[in-house]
């Protein structure tokens, strides 16, 4: 290996005095500030900038249209095309859930019910959204394709009880799923 000895560059008098370079730097910085203020920063367009720099003003502006198909947001329960609960409270999701966020109280379907042959349904179904890590294991393990991770990501509350999604809320987020949904195909 040849040894390359790197010499320090010889500076001219103007460079040594440093003043011109500092002034030039200030002009560049100020120019960049003006471009940023006018919203002309590189990449401001595709980053959905609010007009200053490249920053998007979050609660008013959102990126929902750019969410990928496989986005894993809040887990939610779904009903089928005849508004039946798909969940049969087998509690597999409760057992698989790594942070133990899901709590199910199973209930029996009374024998005079039209769908009595399903036998079980959840009496209560709580998901603690403070604990949930959005891993999607509940969706993967569910034999009835009753629980899905929806693209909702704005989950807020002012106290802990508000952050627990009960059954009603879960169905509200999940909505209706029509037809036999195979959980392995692309369409969610």
């Amino acid at each position: 290996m040849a040894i390359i000895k790197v010499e320090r560059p010889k500076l001219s008098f103007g460079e040594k005095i440093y003043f011109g370079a500092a002034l030039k730097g200030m002009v560049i910085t100020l120019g960049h500030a003006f471009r940023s203020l006018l919203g002309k920063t590189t990449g401001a367009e595709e980053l959905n900038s609010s007009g200053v720099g490249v920053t998007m003003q979050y609660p008013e502006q959102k990126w929902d249209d750019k969410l990928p198909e496989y986005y894993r947001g809040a887990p939610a329960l779904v009903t089928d095309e005849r508004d039946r609960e798909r969940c049969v409270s087998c509690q597999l999701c409760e057992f698989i859930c790594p942070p133990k966020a899901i709590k199910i109280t199973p209930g029996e379907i009374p024998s005079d019910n039209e769908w009595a042959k399903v036998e079980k349904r959840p009496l209560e179904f709580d998901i603690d959204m403070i604990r949930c890590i959005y891993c999607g294991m509940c969706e993967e393990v569910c034999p009835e394709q009753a629980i899905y991770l929806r693209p909702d990501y704005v989950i807020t509350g002012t106290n802990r009880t508000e952050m627990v999604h009960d059954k009603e809320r879960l169905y509200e987020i999940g909505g209706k799923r029509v037809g036999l949904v195979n959980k392995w195909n692309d369409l969610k």
Partner: protein
Amino acid sequence: MDTTLLIAAAIKIAVFIGITMSFVSICVIFERRFSAIIQDRVGPNRTMIPLSILGFKKDLALPIGGLTQPVADGLKFILKEDFTPSYVRKLFFWLAPVLVVVPALLTMAVIPFGSPMEIAGNVIPMAVADLNVGPLYIFAIASLSVYGITLAGWASNSKYPFFGGVRACAQMISYEIALGLSIVPVLMFFGGLNLGHIVEDQVTNGWLLLPLWNEGGFIISSGYWADPQASIQRLLLLIPIFVSFIIFTTSIFAETNRMPFDLPECETELVGGYHTEYSSMKFALFFMGEYAAMVVGSALIVTLFLGGWSIGFGIDNLLPVGAWWVSLLHIGVFLGKVTFFILFFILVRWTVPRFRYDQLMNLGWIVFFEAALINVFLAALVIAYPSIGIMGLAIGFALLITATILLIKIAKSSLEKPSATAV
């Protein structure tokens, strides 16, 4: 003493301390917003007035672009836990933040904020104390803040604050010399140390850095050239004064521990420097002291070099003397100029990278000290030109150039590293 003057003095103290303190908070919001814009961000722009903690239903959101952010910052500092580590030297630990913030506020006393106001027959200067030793007073008081920072570093009884304190001590004392020497040409030109008089002189004869008009009129009119020798001398004087300006401004940066010279608190090396162990309001006092020093520094630069409160371009002479609204207008102009300089401080922060410590010391002791010294003699030559004549000027220049070459030689040899065998 007249009661009017006493009352006026009390009002002036309250108002000017208020202006300084509010400027400190304005500095903070400017720093945050301007830095954000330089870095393609938005910065704090949606701070509300939190009416909800007073029991109202909703917070009040005003379209003022986050101007209430400093209030929120201040409240946060007051409400935070004030933690004093068990191993610190308590007395000095508590004394240090005070020693930083008090000198910075005291120096504001001699800055003329506006033109003198006439109330009930009394002409009241718009400075808390219209001293005849203005800049000297500022240097004397401002140098006290070195104690604050050094004591903070020492009293924290921990490694990084100690390094920060030592660095700050060396840096601030070194740059005080350049700071003091660099304004000697300015004071020679004005022939006095009263900042109020200095500004009034600039009103009629043009700003120190912008002598575009004098009693006769603008530079393009013949009135300006009524005494051609004096006019040429004044324009020649721009060279030493510009050098003074550069050295003075840079030294102010070093004195206030601002960005290219912020080695006492550089977080990449020293965690937080001298205020590492401080929390809550004690930390906020350091913060305020730094920004207050920045405001005073800017005010001093504006007063000495850029005409202080004068609007300039001969407009001041058209306004009635002593009217209250003229004084207020001048205060506004002064604050505008100070704001401009604060923005300049922030711009420099995001442009010039931090110096290495030996480079900082070399710049202070070898470049600025010598340059300021030579500059004094250069200014003296130009000022003395009418009395010593062309021959005296030539001899003086020859001597000065010889001395300069000699000084540069000495400075260069002092920069050379001693060879290994020489030891």
